[in-house]
């Protein structure tokens, strides 16, 4: 049976690749949906989920691939190795899949200090062991000095989808609650500061961690009530939620005062004119759950060490459909858009 990918609503007219295409926002989406996906058209791809769902035997497998090109390689709270393992495991986790195995490909720059590589291998081994997931293979290539920023890592992960979980944006209903596992903005701001161009100092670190323990706890407690999950990486919470509601008959209303943000992240965002909802996270997840299980889901997540910061940040509403809005404590509302390009500090 051949199924054609429905005609993409986004058309890709750009003639050259820009940094914006990798930022995780609108440009990235246009690249994927407008150029890449049409070439590979198939029904699994058409779901555009964090992980591909492949029927296998009596159940389903989730598979995911990811690439990591962070600069600097090491930063407060972690390094590229941590991101590579945690990020891949998280894509599986938010697909409701128990991670089974990982693979990793290294693109190494000639001249890279072996001690750096070794440090990353140790970080990856550590992060994988914490969740009990083996790294079962991969590949290595070396490119000339001046390329690959030291090293790039690309990963593949496979997991087994928990049959109790059915995640589907079409199953989301007005009244459902939007849960967030913890404070946002830590990773993106840490990286921005670590690059050193802005001359800001703060006691901040990346939040990189695997969220499977929290997701798993929520699944054990109330699998049937979980409608949708996503890890808000590049593009932040705003982009993830916009991807949920796009084309749907419902929207999201976020309570701005409920969104958890560490003081220093907030300070940096105010100073630089950035919206924390657009900043990348590497250790958080969003879940849309039915109203009746929301309290249970939060309790389950909070009971896991590291999950104490989980909160409800908003709800699904009928109007306006297809949009994410922020509601302030005094009733002012604003639309919250997807990220356009890289979040850039502004002075105006």
């Amino acid at each position, binding site marked *: 049976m051949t199924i054609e990918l429905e005609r993409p609503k986004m058309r890709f007219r750009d003639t050259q690749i820009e940094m914006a295409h990798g930022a995780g926002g609108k440009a990235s989406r246009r690249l994927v949906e407008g150029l890449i996906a049409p070439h590979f058209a198939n029904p699994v791809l058409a779901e555009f989920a964090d992980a591909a769902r492949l029927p296998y035997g009596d159940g389903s497998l989730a598979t995911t691939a990811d690439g990591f090109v962070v600069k600097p390689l090491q930063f407060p709270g972690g390094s590229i190795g941590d991101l590579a393992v945690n990020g891949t495991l998280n894509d599986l986790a938010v697909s409701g899949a128990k991670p089974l195995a990982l693979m990793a490909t290294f693109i190494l720059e000639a001249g890279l200090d072996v001690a750096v590589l070794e440090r990353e291998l140790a970080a990856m081994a550590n992060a994988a062991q914490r969740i009990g997931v083996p790294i079962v293979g991969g590949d290595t290539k070396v490119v000339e000095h001046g390329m690959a920023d030291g090293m790039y890592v690309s990963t593949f992960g496979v997991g087994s989808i928990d049959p109790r979980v059915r995640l589907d944006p079409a199953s989301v209903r007005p009244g459902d609650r939007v849960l967030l596992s913890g404070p946002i903005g830590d990773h993106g701001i840490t990286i921005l500061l670590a690059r050193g161009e802005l001359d800001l100092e703060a006691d901040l670190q990346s939040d990189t961690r695997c969220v499977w323990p929290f997701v798993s706890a929520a699944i054990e407690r109330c699998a049937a009530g979980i409608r949708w999950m996503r890890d808000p990486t590049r593009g932040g919470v705003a982009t993830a939620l916009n991807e949920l509601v796009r084309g749907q008959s419902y929207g999201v209303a976020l309570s701005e005062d409920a969104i958890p943000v560490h003081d220093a992240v907030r300070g940096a965002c105010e100073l630089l004119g950035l919206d924390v909802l657009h900043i990348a996270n590497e250790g958080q997840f969003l879940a849309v759950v039915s109203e009746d299980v929301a309290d249970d889901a939060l309790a389950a997540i909070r009971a896991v060490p590291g999950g104490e910061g989980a909160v409800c940040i908003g709800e699904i509403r009928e109007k306006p459909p297809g949009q994410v809005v922020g509601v*302030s404590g005094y009733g*002012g509302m*604003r*639309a919250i858009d997807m990220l356009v390009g890289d979040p850039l500090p*502004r002075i105006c």
Partner: protein
Amino acid sequence: MKYVDEYRDPKLIGAVAAEIARIADPARTYRIMEVCGGHTHAIYRYGLADVLPKNIEFVHGPGCPVCVLPTGRVDDGLAIAEHPNVILACFGDMMRVPGTKGTPLEHKARGADIRMVYSPLDALRLAKENPSRHVCFFAIGFETTAPSTALTLLKAKTENVRNFSVFCNHVVVIPPMRAIVDAPEMQIDAFIGPGHVSTVIGTKPYEFIASEYHKPVVVSGFEPLDLMESVLMVLRQLAAGEAKVENQYRRIVADDGNAAALSAMEQTMQLRPHFEWRGLGSIPLSALSIRPEFSAWDAEVQFEVPGVRVADPSAARCGDVLKGVLSPPQCALFGKECTPERPVGALMVSSEGACAAHYRYVHAGQAVEA
């Protein structure tokens, strides 16, 4: 955050909103121009239209220095960046502004050395750290930002940094305000004055609006409570038939401004006879250039720039939106050919341009301004 959170207090905002609702005359419409792009951004970002009576309308003024920068000037800056030895340093705001052949980010992708800085002092430091390169700082902004450029020029001279220059695009706020209040098609009842520009120039320069044109001016802060209080102060003046300049932002703005800032500008810069404002045309004595004593650091002296005037597409109604004659959605290109991702006109370029702010923050449930 101190001096921020207090001005986002829902209770106080609600109290001011209630008072505004109480004294607003339901039989009339109030058209208040906020001059500064930062105020435009804040009004949209904080959803103030949702807490104000529908008969109070904001007319968005031209105080967005990125928006009013003509495309030709962007091209000039990018021409400087094309020199192989040059590092062009600019604020984040400039990186996505389209020139004729692409934005600074796109030029960077094609190999130009363009770097983002947070402060002009960072650009000067870049010059000191790269003695074999020339660092050119793309200066934009109103009087809030000009003193920083001025101090940087003074420092460059004192420290004799010879591989540094400034491409000066600073503009000043009073001439366009005068042009706006003078224009016969203007239907503005009062002005919300630019709070941060006023830290430099003080509140006295706005007197002419009150004395010659009999319109109230309230110089405002940028938090939602500041803007709400300023609207209340405007309404009170209008109700009393008054027209004077008031300072709502007293905790930060001194009525006399900042003498050191004005002095630094005076020492290093002078007024250009005229300057083109995108969407508004040429305005005399509205922009700054670098004084001859500092010509060694003036990029327009050190480099040849094309200096070509590039007209906006005629379908782009930026000028009318800037003058408050049209609201953003009333331009045919709004949200279709012209979006923040692919801006056609000036007001979609910067996040505080009226069109960009409207596009980003207005939600489908809000009434579109007439």
